[in-house]
């Protein structure tokens, strides 16, 4: 399923939540929407889900406008979690799947596989309120994907999960991707997006700052620097062609390179003269890129995240 947003704009009470946002999510990829809290991620997702309607612009699924049929083909895990507390696990899963147009028969055939996978089988007939928070999260994840949606939208998926469960769910997502499902993933934790996504779109204050393939984004915004960890005297590196500046650290040196400098030549030269233990072209983190490109003061980003913790 291919998803396209064309110049989406949404204004709430005079405040622009999303402004002129265009993006394209190809079939079978993991696409990350990243940005600080309040950037417009959830609003964007709500518009894709047809929960709120954009003031202008349009949303296309496989080149066609949103239709009723789309609701059955999408799985949505909202940022704010919740399930019916008084219903049993089986009842909840059954209900949510039927709401997506699946038959009770279908649910019976598939529920055990997922409960098993998520280590919830023994709680099958318990009420939701008896589960721990982490278990409820996993249960909600099951309800999001049990009906085999073509597009899966996960808003802040990992918040509140322990590392073991994060690993578990990450593997499920990678499996889903291999099955050709399209996954739209939103987070304010850049490291998560960095590990999981094929494509990313950074938004800040409702506007797109940058988007594209993760590797390309990183290459494009690379600082163009090299870290070398070596035995022997490395003082000569500062005089190599293309090296603009050298910073010495305790265990390694970092070279800032000129634009278009030949990195392989440098490796060859260095390797000929000393023993190289590590040679690494340093990729900037998404966080660095974001701070750089969105021209945000890092303290402001942190404040935004802290703010979220209190909401």
């Amino acid at each position, binding site marked *: 399923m291919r998803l396209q947003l064309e110049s989406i704009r949404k204004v709430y009470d005079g405040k622009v939540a999303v402004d002129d946002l265009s993006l394209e999510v190809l079939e079978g990829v993991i696409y990350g929407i990243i940005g600080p809290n309040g950037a417009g991620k959830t609003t964007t997702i709500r518009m894709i889900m047809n*929960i709120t309607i954009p003031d202008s612009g349009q949303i296309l699924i496989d080149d066609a406008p949103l239709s009723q049929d789309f609701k059955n083909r999408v799985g*949505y*895990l*909202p940022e*704010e979690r*919740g399930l*019916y507390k*008084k219903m049993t696990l089986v009842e909840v899963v059954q209900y949510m799947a*039927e*709401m997506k147009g699946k038959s009770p028969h279908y649910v019976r055939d598939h529920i055990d596989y997922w409960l098993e996978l998520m280590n919830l089988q023994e709680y099958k007939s318990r009420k939701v309120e008896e589960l721990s928070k982490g278990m409820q999260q996993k249960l909600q994840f099951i309800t999001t994907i049990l009906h085999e949606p073509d597009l899966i939208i996960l808003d802040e998926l990992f918040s509140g999960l322990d590392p073991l469960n994060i690993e578990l769910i990450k593997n499920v997502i990678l499996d889903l991707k291999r099955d050709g499902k399209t996954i739209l993933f939103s987070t304010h934790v850049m490291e998560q997006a960095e590990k999981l996504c094929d494509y990313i779109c950074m938004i800040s204050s409702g506007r797109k700052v940058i988007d594209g393939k993760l590797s390309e984004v990183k290459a494009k915004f690379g600082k163009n620097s090299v870290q070398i960890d070596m035995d022997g005297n490395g003082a000569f590196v500062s005089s190599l062609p293309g090296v603009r500046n050298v910073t010495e650290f305790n265990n390694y040196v970092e070279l800032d390179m000129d634009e278009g400098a030949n990195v392989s030549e440098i490796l060859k030269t260095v390797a000929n003269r000393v023993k190289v233990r590590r040679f690494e072209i340093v990729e900037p983190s998404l966080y660095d890129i974001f701070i750089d490109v969105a021209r945000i003061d890092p303290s402001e980003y942190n404040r935004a995240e802290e703010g979220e913790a209190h909401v």
Partner: protein
Amino acid sequence: MSKFWVIFKREYAQVVKKKSFIVGIVLTPLLMIGFSVIPAWLASKKASDTEPLAVIDRSGYDSGLKFSQSLERYKLDDDSTAYYDVRGIFDIDDSESERYQIVYDSLVQCINDQQLKYFVVIGPDAQLVDTASFMVTNSDNFRANRRFGDCLSEILSAIRLQESKVNLGVDSVLSLTRQIDLAQKDAKGDSIPFEIKYFSAIIFIGIMFGMIFGYGQLVMRSVIEEKNSRIMEVLISSVSPFQLMLGKVIGLGAATFTQVSIWVILGAGLYSMKGSFDIDSSIDRILFNPVIAAFFVFFMMSGYLLFSTLFALIGSIVNSEKEAQNFVMPITMIMILPFMLGIYIIQNPNSTASTVLSLIPFLTPTMMMMRVIFVAPTLTEYSLFSGIIGEATLGLVLVCLSVLGMIWITSKVFRVGILMYGKRPTLPEILKWVRY
């Protein structure tokens, strides 16, 4: 399967599968019977202890003694022991005001010490001054007051009779002036006694009130639960808000219908044992009246739809049940109005005030139903376009139109309200959503 039915099924099962549903079905009629029967039973219960009293007679006609003899007609449960035990009769002349005060004070003391239950003062010139006599007691007992009044009236009448020199025996004059019970029949031939009408109305309206109010609030709670637990966002990504609202309202409506149906069956069983209760057979004219039955079903359904959509609207704009109570309060007032006005309506079922009130949509289901029961029409008596049936039909049409309007407004507010957290919207904001 259509998603409406998925929601319908869940809402229905959530209520009907609960133990409280069964308990409610059994307990509610028991409570209703309890509330109506126990007070009546208590009131009719005879006392088992003789009640002590004293009399101060200032009339000078031996009225105290006669009063005491007159009271002997009242017996306790065993029909042999006297109900009242006159412990003392104080004949005090009009002029002895000092002695009267001493006796009066000591009798008051006796009452406070619970040695006496009452004392009666027959005043000077009691036969001439109706207000001269009175009784003193700490227990408000209507029966004693009525009995003492009756006895004293007879004695004073006899005194007046003697004074007037009419040559007739006291007993014959009293028998000439006795009171009768005026029976009442209506123009249709036989009559339905007031009590039967009133209690039928209370039961019919009570069921209606309980069902509309109880299940209407369940609709509200269900919306609040989904809002609070944030399931709403997932639901709305699967179905339209309108489908969700309708599934809830109609699913819980079906639960209401189930409960009333079970009561009707239980009631039919109880009715078959009618012989063992002392119930006037005229109740058949209400229970088996097709007009009443039809309007009960119609008003129940339309009333439920009207109020439950209103409750759904409230559920969508509030954040907690506590907040919702502010809105539930005025609805309760509207719904209990027919109970408060019941006595007026039963006396004037066709007055302009009754007619106008019963045509206000939110009052119609209960108020109009009450009038239909009081008039207890038959199909041959009125056409669909005149009389009480005509008015009730008009009321029903108005309620149905209001239901459509209510659904329209609620669906507009609902779709915005259910995704709003935190601040409760103001009225202007809600109006904006309606036009949106």
